[in-house]
């Protein structure tokens, strides 16, 4: 399943770092953090989607405290 969310991310470099970390989460097929459009796209296993999404936000916040996703 692939879904797009509005997100808050402060700089282009942070976006790249968050993107890379989220991709490494187990069950994530693809992830994108778009600084320009302030959109977060997560493609992950259907069955565990909500769980993975939560984990992604947690990992993102760890790297970039200002990272926030509107769910």
């Amino acid at each position, binding site marked *: 399943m692939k879904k797009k969310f509005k997100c808050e991310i402060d700089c*282009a470099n942070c976006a790249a770092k968050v993107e890379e970390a989220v991709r490494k989460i187990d069950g994530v097929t693809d992830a994108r953090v778009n600084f320009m459009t302030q959109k977060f796209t997560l493609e992950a296993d259907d069955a565990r989607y909500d769980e993975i999404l939560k984990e992604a936000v947690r990992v993102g916040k760890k790297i970039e405290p200002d990272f926030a996703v509107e769910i």
Partner: protein
Amino acid sequence: MSQKLKKQLFIILAALALFLVILILEKSGALPAVFENRWAKLLLYLVPYLLSGWTVVRKAVLGVIHGQMLDESFLMTLASIGAFVTGETEEAVAVMLFYQVGEYFQSYAVGKSRASISELMDIAPSYANILREDGSVETADPDDVEIGDTLVVRPGEKIPVDSVVLKGESMLNTAALTGESVPRNVKAGDPVISGCINGEGLLEVRAEKIYDDSTVARILEMVENASEKKSRTENFITRFAKYYTPIVVISALILAIVPPLFTGNWMEWIYRACTFLVISCPCALVISVPLSFFGGIGAASKSGVLVKGSNYLELLSRLKIVVTDKTGTLTEGNFKVSSLKPAEGVAESELLLAADLAESMSTHPIALSIREALRMREDGPKAEGSGGASPLVQVENISGQGLAARYEGSEILVGNARLMEERGILYEAVDDEAATVCFVARDGRYLGSIAIRDLVKEDAKRAVAAMKECGVERVVMLTGDRKGVADSVGRELGITECFSELLPKDKVLKVEELLTQRRQKDALAFLGDGINDAPVLMRADVGIAMGSLGSDAAIEAADAVIMDDNLMRIPMVIRIARKTVGISKQNIVFALGVKVLILVLGALGIAGMWAAVFADVGVAVLCILNSMRLLMGKKTI
């Protein structure tokens, strides 16, 4: 966002004012008791420092806890602490303050450019008026419209989903979608595309697609995704950023430890190392390149060309070979009867009518053009079979020659010269290479010939010349049409390389051959109207579909979509692409150059932290402003 920005600005200004007051107090020699005490002075300066920089310090601490040592907040904090330690109290505060000022400018500029791009893309309808069966009108979200719903579009409103007009007549403004400023006239039966703005008339339309499948939603989706397909320059810079920071930090460490081992003077070298840390953030670089591509894609869509990714924009800037389809791309794509040559004693209308009868079962462009010509005439009888299939006509296709039709006991032949020769009919040869000529005979009697032409688009010649001016070295035409027609169109447009009588698979082979002929760094584009040429569109470096607004297959297969069918948009998008790539290169060279310069000057002790912070922040802001130039450009069509 803007609320956050306002708060940020207020805090920065307050900290700045406080800092200046303290600085003036110190320099003017007031309160000597306070400023002579090192700790009191430090405490005093810590107030504006923490006021402006507490978010940075907080992030730095969080970063350390989470193991993000090379975070820019951490590096800035470390640099300013270094300045405090070496006794440069004012500088520590200034560094933090100006870093925040720079961050503020950055978010402001990025926010501005984001807003101006989304303004360009302000095509999404915000509501739909659904007409219910009881006659009431309900205002709903476009998402809630179902296929088959009747919608009311009032003057000035946007068409919510792709639909067909049921009632009413109006002028539609398609400028936001196509860049075309002339409004389009629509009446009952015409398809209308979502996102167009209704003019003066009231329209009743039937929804043909749900919102998500409608043109407007697909375009928005495409533009949003475009910035995710990264250009080579962007990928380079992201990779570069990964190494840049660690390298600068390690150099800073070396600078702080190695030279003082020989010279002593630790404080001086630690200070110089701190200067390094200040410029170690790659943000100016990382932001400026994607921002310029984002701007380029925005500028292109403003002028009616959707480019599906930064990578395609980059390829367009190096476009050297344009391969183009003929029918529907360089030519209008609808055939028109260009001349009638009835045999002696035959009326023009009789000739046309006979041809139309024979072709009445056909939907071939030639049949349609004959029907159209007949419809336009005032003198011809209009009934007999024209405009629809008459059950009384029996048609036999004669492959490669034409057709023979039986109608009320008589036989009508419509076809090429070979058909006439085969049937032993004396005909008058027509010398018109560019046209398709149909000869018509009825019951063995020659009636005359009808020449049908596909007219070359008005601006095609100008567009071909303009492409060449933009650095395109070869324009190649591929067509399934006859050699005579192809060569004559080529001559008319100044295209020297014409390959005719190609099947769709031959076109792919030809493009592959051309791809091997080009230099590695050059790009090849295929330009087509999106009908039957999806394989070629995919094969080319950049597949450009035109005049295909509303055609899903073409939008899907192409890398760039010209929303109307104006050929002049091609040289224009090449110019935009070149400008984009140029600006992104300027940004890289400028940002890197300044950083390297400051690194060298910092190591030599010439540039202090002030200069470093100004360099870092100033470069970022200048790069952003440079990228914004792309959006300022006026439309050229």
